[in-house]
């Protein structure tokens, strides 16, 4: 499991996750993910193209960023999410807490 900071400015940070967000994967990236989604109130874009699997620990990690932003008016935008991963978010009852975009360009064009 890898996390890469692809781009950022005062409005947003773009993170690219790759690998399986199961227990093992979350343990590998959760500290870096928390560090990069804390502090500044800016939109968090997460490119999920290379994430084929998310379990509840992964939902929890993604949700932690949404919680940190809550009240700032900024959102977590999940980019190009797998259909089954979307199903997991829906079944966890948390899909309304995220925004979604088909690709990076769309996500960037919608920045507040």
């Amino acid at each position, binding site marked *: 499991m890898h996390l890469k900071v692809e781009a950022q400015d005062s409005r947003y940070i773009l993170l690219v996750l790759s690998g399986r967000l*199961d*227990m*093992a994967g979350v*343990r590998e990236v959760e500290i870096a993910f928390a560090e990069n989604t804390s502090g500044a109130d800016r939109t968090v874009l997460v490119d999920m193209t290379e994430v084929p*699997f998310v*379990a*509840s*620990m992964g*939902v*929890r990690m993604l*949700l*932690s960023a*949404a*919680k940190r932003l*809550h009240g700032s008016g900024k959102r977590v935008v999940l980019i190009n999410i797998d259909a*089954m991963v979307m*199903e*997991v978010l829906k*079944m*966890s*009852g*948390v899909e309304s*807490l995220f925004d979604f975009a088909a690709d990076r360009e769309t996500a960037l064009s919608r920045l507040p």
Partner: protein
Amino acid sequence: MNRKTFTATIKTDFTALEDIGTAVREFLTAAQVGGEAAYKIELALEEMVTNVIKYGYDVPDDANSVTVTVSLLPDRIVLAIADTGHEFNPLLAAPPDTAGGLDERPIGGVGIHLTRKMTDAMTYSRHNGRNLLSITVKLTP
């Protein structure tokens, strides 16, 4: 050889969970089970074995173990998980409150609930000091 059953007994730690997750994925791939059904079995394995590792035993001990069996049937996959830990019936676990707003939303505690929603059937029994959990995922032709 077309294997229809996978079984393994693992120690109750997260390294062992990672290894068996990989082994089950390879088994399903070899049996040409992919897509939604494979995802659901992998998810159930991850969530339910995580539960045993976290809450099944008070003291870490090499004797603690979980036995995982995956059986391929013509119309479904059955995942069986057996452990000798504390008696725990996940069917009786209270669902997390997902109706509240973001601030009230508890972090975690959704694994069992998620597994029940993503799979087709779950049964539980306790025999001779063992928890026996069986989870079914239907195969769509």
